[in-house]
């Protein structure tokens, strides 16, 4: 674990009165949120005087709306989706951009000849919907692709494996692993990365910002204690993420202990892949890069989905993000000598087992 964090800087910790906080995730308990579970398991938040309840997401849960409605104190959400909610009237602020890179891929068979978004023209393209499709549409728009058909993608990758669709949406840390855990009936062995060709939106240049911590704008402004809590929440979470960086297995174990039934190797793969999205960090984990933000906003304004709907039609308000709280948390941590950049981070090698088990 990262050095010296569990020592002192707990300002008002220890005297029993913990502030209750609720944090809404955007999907089920899994290593995608490992940092939060580690922060909880290792008592970082408790040390800071917070009693954080982590609430897993579900199919119809829109975390940023839950937050805006006042049902929870903080929420994890992707930026483009949150921008849409802000335009719909949600009064929320991005206070920490945990993931620096996008984890979304469009995967095709290696023999399909699909190398970039332009090749998706006239193809059957899988997508999950639920607001997870904007990078895909941005890529398609930018490459002037046409004639493609969007197919609602299931939770599994069978549509691609059965060659019903030409390219499937996949997160590096989840669905992509599902492909590599499946047995190739021709060889009797697991599929190999060489069997697939991958479009990475980070490389194409239409990646958008993903997992961020969101807070209620109004409360940030009017409620000092809430603002204080925001800092502590970020600070504790960062410690958790650092633990995951240093020991992905610990993260995998923590989420399994929290009730996830994903296979063991799959879980570890996910923890490792998530690390790659965070580390090494350019400005310190959580700091919102203005250029990346503006790029995301610009694409959100310019992209239309198959119904012709846009993510947003006008620029988001200035309150849509702030580095005020994350910077303070980073400052506190740096003072304790915590490595918030992970400059020499190296991912581990994970071997996927059949079925992810």
């Amino acid at each position, binding site marked *: 674990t990262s050095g010296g964090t569990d020592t002192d800087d707990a300002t008002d910790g220890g005297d029993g009165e913990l502030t209750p906080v609720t944090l809404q995730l955007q999907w089920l308990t899994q290593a995608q949120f490992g940092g939060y579970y580690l922060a909880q398991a290792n008592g970082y938040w408790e040390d800071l005087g917070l009693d954080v309840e982590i609430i897993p997401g579900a*199919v*119809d849960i*829109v975390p*940023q*709306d839950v937050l*805006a*409605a006042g049902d929870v104190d903080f929420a994890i959400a992707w930026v483009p*989706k949150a921008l*849409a*909610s802000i335009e*719909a*009237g*949600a009064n929320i602020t991005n206070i920490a951009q945990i993931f620096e890179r996008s984890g979304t891929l469009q995967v095709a068979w290696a023999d399909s000849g699909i190398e970039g978004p332009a090749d998706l023209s006239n193809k*059957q393209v899988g*997508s999950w*919907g*639920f*607001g997870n499709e904007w990078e895909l549409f941005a890529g398609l728009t930018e490459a002037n692709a046409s004639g493609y*058909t*969007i*197919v*609602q*993608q*299931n*939770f*599994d990758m*069978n*549509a691609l494996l*059965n060659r*019903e*669709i030409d390219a499937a949406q996949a997160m590096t840390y989840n669905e992509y692993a599902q492909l590599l855990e499946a047995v190739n009936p021709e060889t009797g062995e697991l599929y190999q990365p060489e069997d697939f060709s991958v479009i990475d939106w980070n490389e194409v240049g239409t990646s958008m910002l993903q997992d961020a911590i969101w807070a209620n704008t109004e409360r940030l402004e009017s409620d000092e204690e809430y603002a204080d809590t925001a800092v502590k929440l970020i600070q504790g979470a960062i410690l958790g993420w650092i633990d995951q960086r240093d020991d992905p297995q610990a993260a995998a174990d923590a989420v399994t202990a929290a009730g996830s039934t994903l296979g063991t190797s799959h879980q570890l793969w996910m923890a490792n892949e998530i690390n790659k999205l965070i580390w090494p960090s350019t400005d310190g984990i959580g700091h919102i890069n203005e250029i990346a933000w503006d790029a995301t906003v610009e694409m959100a304004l310019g992209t239309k*989905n*198959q*119904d012709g*709907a846009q*993510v947003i039609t006008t620029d988001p308000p200035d309150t849509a993000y702030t580095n005020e709280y994350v910077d303070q948390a980073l400052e506190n941590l740096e003072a304790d000598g915590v490595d918030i950049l992970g400059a020499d981070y190296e991912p581990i090698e994970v071997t996927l087992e059949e079925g992810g088990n």
Partner: protein
Amino acid sequence: MTGLPDAAIATQLAPPAERRRRGPGDRPLRRFIGLVVPPIVLFIVLVLLVELVVVAAGIPPFVLASPSAIWGQLVQYAPQVLQATLVTGLNALIGLVIGAVIGVLLAIVASFIRAIDGMLVPIVAAVAVVPIVALAPVLYTMFGSTSEVARIIIASIAAFVPVFLNTLRGLRQVRPVHRDLMRSYAATPRQETRAVTIPSALPHFFTGLRIASSLAVISALVAEYFGGPRQGLGSAITTAAASSAYARAWAFVIGAILLGLVFFALTTVIERIASRHR
């Protein structure tokens, strides 16, 4: 006797009982007004109430869309709503037909062969309680997720249960006096089936069909949440809701409600015609 046989029937409104309660001289127009006006009045009151609450309490649109906003979206997206309704409606219709045909065929077989009936009991009971959400992903894998087949199958499974149970009950409810009559005419089994068994079972079949119609619509719609081509109401609702466009989501929901209403009304009319002389 089986898992849920009478359930489906007994809990539905019985038009004949309703009819008998009315006085002799009740004119159709009056009856129509009596039937239609109260719900419409209630509907208008509810809509106004919601609008008032939303406006007065300043409820944000991502919590509850105001009726006026929904109407606005409905007008704006009318072509899409219509298109999506047609797609889902067609799936539901085909599913309903397939489910009804299989239900009737199996009911006929079960009415002839007791063993088959006994074997179908647990299967039908299980099919009656299986959540669609659980079945959908599996069916997409089996039948592919680029065609509407899996959705149609889900709709037909949902429609199958009430049609099967009601038809089977109907086939068993041939009155003994009619059986005796047929025997006294030395009628062949075929003649008996044609002249007595099928006409006796017909109203029961249509009752089953009416129940099945609503189930087929809602099942075809829910199945869209989990895969398949993205054209129907279910996909549109999820997509809109996920981007916090709740007013748009509700515009599609209204399409869903209207679709359910049309199916229900049509099958009710058919049922009434079929059981007119009873």
